[in-house]
């Protein structure tokens, strides 16, 4: 008899099953998405009109900081690890992840990290208030006492990410079914393989920089303290050496998701598979050489400024290749527009808009005007919300029938899409304008000149938030009472994950499938 899952709480606490762990990652991420969303709505409520209405400036700073940290480390990253857990073994014909116990550990330390981080909100002096980029010395000499807990939480998150990455690499390199050569792997597997290497390369750098902060705060060192011979700019170099690859960690798996969905609903194979692989690899390599484009105004010497400008502009080329490939995949296909496809098409369009503003920001002299304004906020939200978040949403709609054996309601799904699409553009498009007009980021109050765009953004954000509540309802409804799904689920689906029954049995591919 095949082993089924254990019962009760111990199933979840002790599980080493990649599907269980994948689900836990996804639910955890969903919860963090709502928590980070609440922080965002507090920010947008305060910015609805000029003047201080709802929160104190210091609390406002805590909200922007916690929003960024929770969304990046709590919502986006764990969601992609959850998708990898569910899909990578099924896509390569493996029975499970290579290191199942470590898998359990890497998930279960996350809730502790975020409980710790969230608890700082109730501490004396409040939560971290120095931005998700936590520039020293604001985050060291001038930080609230809770910074120590923040550092510890970041250490735990980093450990979790590194373990997850090791596991994914070990799985992909060792557990592929016979015949599943590297260049036959689905693009989602490829993008995750590359992402995992990025994680292993840069999470230790993040751990290093927070450890240096810890030393400065508690053990009398002066890494980042100018008065002690240290260097605040050094902090930024180390942070962005982690930080720029980090933004690609949040988008490469998204490329993989979209590269799975568009061919399915265009009923046509992905265009330029191998160039997609090479483009992903070149983006990953280039991502290590552009970090100082976040620091164009710190006063680097001319030549440094110039090199980082050129390298950053170069990244647009492989990024463009990807977009062209997706469009050409759709070209002369036979398209239908189910919810996953809608989210994927919106991904391509809106991510490209984010890429355009990225290209503008890459022009160093122009960045003197853009830097640290709402224009940058618009840029990174266009690449992260319709980028990372939309791809995760698309993935959930696309694979949910395989996970739980039931379909979601298509009409509700499309409604969710349109609400989210409108809400998001209403929120973030005006930020281009307020930024260009001169509104700095991370301020709780502003001149009435920016009032109209801010009001529009705030209204949009609440619409977007409401759309996500609908999403939760749709998912629960599908799990509880959705129509039974077929094994193939989608007419145009290809790949090993669609050859197993829906819902996928607790153990799949205990004997490896044949891939030709």
């Amino acid at each position, binding site marked *: 008899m095949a082993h089924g899952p254990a019962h009760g709480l111990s199933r979840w606490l002790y599980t080493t099953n990649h599907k269980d762990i994948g689900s836990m990652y996804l639910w955890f991420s969903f919860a963090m998405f709502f928590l980070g969303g609440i922080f965002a709505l507090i920010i947008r409520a305060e910015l609805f009109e000029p003047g201080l209405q709802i929160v104190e400036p210091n609390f406002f700073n805590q909200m922007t900081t916690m929003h960024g940290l929770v969304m990046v480390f709590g919502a986006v990253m764990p969601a992609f690890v959850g998708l990898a857990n569910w899909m990578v073994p099924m896509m390569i014909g493996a029975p499970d992840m290579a290191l199942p116990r470590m898998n359990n550990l890497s998930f279960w330390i996350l809730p502790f990290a975020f409980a710790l981080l969230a608890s700082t909100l109730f501490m004396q*002096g409040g939560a971290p208030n120095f931005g998700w980029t936590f520039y020293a010395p604001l985050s060291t000499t*001038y930080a609230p006492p809770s910074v120590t807990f923040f550092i510890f939480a970041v250490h735990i998150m980093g450990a979790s990410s590194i373990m997850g990455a090791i596991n994914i690499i070990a799985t992909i390199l060792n557990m592929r079914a016979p015949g599943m050569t590297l260049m036959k792997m689905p693009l989602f597997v490829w993008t995750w393989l590359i992402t995992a290497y990025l994680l292993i390369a840069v999470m230790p750098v993040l751990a290093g920089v927070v450890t240096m902060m810890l030393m400065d705060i508690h053990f009398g060192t002066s890494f980042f303290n*100018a008065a002690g011979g240290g260097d605040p*700019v050094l902090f930024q170099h180390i942070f962005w050496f982690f930080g720029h690859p980090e933004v690609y960690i949040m988008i490469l798996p998204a490329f993989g998701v979209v590269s799975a969905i568009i061919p399915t609903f265009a009923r046509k194979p992905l265009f330029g598979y191998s160039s997609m692989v090479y483009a992903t690899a070149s983006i990953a390599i280039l991502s290590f050489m552009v970090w100082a484009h976040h620091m164009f105004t710190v006063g680097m010497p001319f030549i440094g400024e110039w090199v980082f400008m050129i390298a950053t502009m170069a990244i647009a080329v492989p990024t463009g290749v990807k977009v062209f490939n997706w469009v050409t995949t759709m070209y002369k*296909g*036979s398209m239908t527009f189910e919810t996953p496809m809608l989210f994927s098409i919106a991904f391509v369009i809106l991510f490209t808009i984010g890429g355009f503003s990225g290209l503008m920001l890459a022009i160093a002299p122009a960045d003197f005007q853009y830097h640290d304004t709402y224009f940058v906020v618009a840029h990174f939200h266009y690449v992260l919300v319709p980028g990372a978040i939309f791809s995760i949403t698309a993935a959930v709609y696309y694979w949910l029938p395989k996970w739980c054996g039931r379909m979601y309601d298509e009409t509700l799904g499309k409604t969710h899409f349109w609400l989210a699409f409108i809400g998001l553009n209403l929120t973030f498009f005006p930020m281009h304008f307020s930024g260009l007009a001169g509104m700095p980021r*991370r301020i709780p109050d502003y001149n009435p000149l920016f009032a109209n765009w801010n009001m529009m953004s705030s209204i949009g954000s609440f619409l977007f938030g409401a759309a996500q509540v609908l999403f939760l309802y749709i998912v629960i409804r599908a799990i509880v009472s959705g129509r039974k799904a077929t094994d193939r689920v989608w007419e145009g689906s290809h790949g090993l994950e669609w050859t197993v029954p829906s819902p996928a049995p607790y153990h799949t591919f205990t004997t490896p499938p044949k891939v030709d």
Partner: protein
Amino acid sequence: MLGKSKRLLVLPLYAFLVALLPAVSWATEWPLNMTEGVTSVSREIHGLHMQIFWWCVVIGVVVFGVMFYTMFVHRKSRGAKPAHFHENVTLELIWTIIPVIILVIMAVPATKTLVHIYDTDDADLDILITGYQWKWKYEYLDSQGENVSFFSLLTTPTSQITNAEPKSEHYLLEVDEPMYIPIGKKVRFLVTAADVIHSWWVPALGVKRDAIPGYIHEAWTKVEVPGVYRGQCTELCGKDHGFMPVVVHAVEQAEYDAWLEGKREKARAIAEAVKQTLTFQQLYEQGEAVYNKNCASCHLADGKGVAGVFPAIAGSKIATGPVADHINRVVKGGVGMPPFGEQLSPVDVAAVVTFQRNAFGNNMGDQIQPIDVVNFKQGQ
């Protein structure tokens, strides 16, 4: 079925339009673009910005054009049959090479502007800009040694910020002491900070420089048109990051000279005032004003502070302890509090210390004279 789903799809559209309504009816200003500014640098930047923007528009029109065409034509409901191609080396080469060419075309003028921005030589005038939590200090460096220096603080009253009064035109963009510069002259800014990192930005000048403790970075401007130019701190620097604006008055040389001479005279007058003895009443009243302007943003107007962050003045160990310690804390700062020894004149320090020791129920009954502060500073 279709009818129902259509109706559901229209709903969000309505929501969108309704959401726009309040904004539209109150519409007075919808600023859309970057300012062209009033310097050669700001104009070059604006030119680059527009150039790269139009490239993006062109690429966008092509890419999205193909996309919308294919979404419309190649749909299953119109009977489209899928093709099977999945590679085309020529096509892939073309769409790699064309972007490279566009980027090279962009990189050339961008490099030129960058060279221009970095050319800080041969300045007519040097101004040292220091960022503090949460104000700017401007120091005009003078070869004769008679430097002029002053702090520039937000003047927007709290009542406007808390919505008790209507907001003025330059809400949050107004200061007590603006920076003055002569037009047509190359002014070099030496930018640094005393506590955390700040960033000095005036959009119309096209100048943004991070102010970093331990570094003095250079930037420059040459304003062509007289006027008042406003900006803000753009690097998160703590609680009042949103409340430390920059205001620059660009004026004719003669007006600038007169302003500078006025500043020098004021400095001489203060040097005189330090030698005077003030009455308790004078000290207390001036101290109250100094307190409300410089201290109340953290210790609050009622002297109660913020638990765990900013200590109360009422009953404070320092404000009710030895006078020397009290002066020391105000002059040199400490434990997260900025030093005020430079920003406040000895008269102001004497006044505010006297005030704190006798307000909020701290009935110390003593008074401090400007000369005490001068002696304290000299003793250091």
